[in-house]
């Protein structure tokens, strides 16, 4: 049973949030993961998400926004259904990360933090994602793809386009 009436989240997520706040000595500790899980469901951190999370954690919306603006994975605008995040940090840069990024830009016809017209893909250049020894690497949503080549990237993108990509949440 959700403690919030008229939750904007699915019953599963609402129940998960009810449980999450009980785990910590202080409720507020649930804030960062909660924002991320809410984003996974809604697609971005909308005003309604901020309002409900503030209510759940007994915080001001301002407190929530203050935290929200700090974390780079949290966004206040929708991304594509599949957010392609290409690492160009040092290890990836040395193994062709920029080439992969450029290839994605051309293939998808969008730039950094842009979304395709059909809303299926968005693209982001990101900092090190902890896959340096298998560079160049990228993530599509939460899934890692490594030892990339432009050919491999094409295959990966087509797999997602066909709705057959993995999607860990």
């Amino acid at each position, binding site marked *: 049973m959700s403690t919030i009436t008229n939750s904007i989240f699915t019953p599963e997520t609402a129940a998960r949030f009810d449980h999450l706040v009980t785990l910590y000595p202080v409720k507020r*500790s649930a804030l960062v993961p909660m924002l991320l899980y809410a984003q996974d469901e809604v697609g971005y951190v909308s005003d309604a998400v901020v309002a409900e999370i503030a209510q759940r954690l007994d915080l001001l919306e301002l407190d929530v926004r203050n935290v929200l603006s700090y974390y780079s994975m949290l966004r206040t605008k929708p991304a594509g259904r599949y957010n392609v995040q290409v690492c160009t940090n040092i290890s990836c840069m040395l*193994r062709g990360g920029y080439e992969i990024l450029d290839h994605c830009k051309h293939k998808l016809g969008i730039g950094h933090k842009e979304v395709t017209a059909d809303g299926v893909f968005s693209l982001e250049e990101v900092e090190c994602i902890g896959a340096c020894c298998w560079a160049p690497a990228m993530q599509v949503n939460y899934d890692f793809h490594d030892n990339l080549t432009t050919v491999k990237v094409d295959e990966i993108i087509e797999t997602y386009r066909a709705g057959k990509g993995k999607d860990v949440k």
Partner: protein
Amino acid sequence: MPTLVSHPDEVKVISRRFGQGAADIDRYLELDGYKAVQKAIAEGPDWIINVMKASGLRGRGGAGFPTGLKWSFVPKQSEKPKYVLVNGDESEPGTCKDHVIFLHDPHAIVEGTMIAGLAIGAKMGFIYLRGEYRYLLKIVEKAVADAYAKGFLGKNIFGSGIDFDIVTQSGAGAYEVGEESALMESLEGKRGVPRIKPPFPAVVGLYGGPTVINNAETIASVPHILLMGGEEYAKIGSERNGGTRLFGISGHVERPGVYELPMGYNLKKAIYDVAGGIKDGKKLKAVVPGGSSCPVLLPEEIDVGLDFDQMGKAGTMLGSGGIVVLDETVSIVEFALRTISFYQHESCGWCIPCREGTDWIKKTMTRIYNGGGNKKDAANIQYLAENMMGRTFCPLGDAAAMPTLGFIKKFRKEFEEYIEGNKAGTPIITVQQLVGAH
């Protein structure tokens, strides 16, 4: 999915269970899992701390502080609850070792957390993973849930009368949160801005209670140390640097990967033998030996042992163990610019030397890179970096200044020639790309 590599010179302690299905709790139990924690319960906190001290294990996050000593700083009596916090916010560029531990041996982290809790008298531990590691978080969450299901966690663990709980936590993207006080802020649901020290976390940490914060690799080493004995573990490594370490070798090598080598192993051998030498038979130009914040080494400087002290003597740091290898084609101006762009992007803006310093160094390097540098620029970069050192709240300022100083001092000529229009190396990044994300 990360590929596992191996080399005959490896000494497999932490990686002993890699590739053996140990994420499954029953398999972990077959491979001596949860034996160390039972031994820890039987022998008690003083014994644990003594074994850890004897092991010579030093923090694998990068600072290299002796783990046993760190644990011994936590006051025995405390009005507020004590906590263990595992730092799995791995985000130092060039570093992916914790990634492999979470994937292949998550129970070692769970068990290590329990042992740290027993040692300091905490009843609760947190395992914090960076937000990008969602698939790994799921693996760790399952490990924790399975440990609860078997009764290893929760009330009265292994009939000891001691309760211990573990909560897993996801970050949401912020390099800065890897710093221990910023990590606590994040876990308390705040912006990941560092706290001023003192007080140190061992006295006032999470929720105001005494807290031990250890890197994931440090924690994963603990059960092995307890089973093999502190002295045995210490023997594997070099003087004052006990045991083994996971080294992630990346960049221009033939066989990049995460290798477990004894502390003190020769860096040159690690690159040429273990990782198969420079890719495509090219010549070596430079090595960034322990993640992007470590000062660069020249080819003639890499005949050195990989431990905290020897690397310090060589004028750099062991850092996170992420060894990044650069071949002759790399433009150091470009590489240095990419490095500072990262720190400028990640600087939280809380203190001025870091916020302004990273920004001005980046601007100056960008100008040089674009062909508009002037003669004083190299000296200016050095001046800026020197004035950041030791003047910031948290280590991010130093992390940005140290590599910058390394590049500008050791490759001064390359910078100056670049300014004069004689550009060494093959550029990778276009001017347009530079204005992109960072």
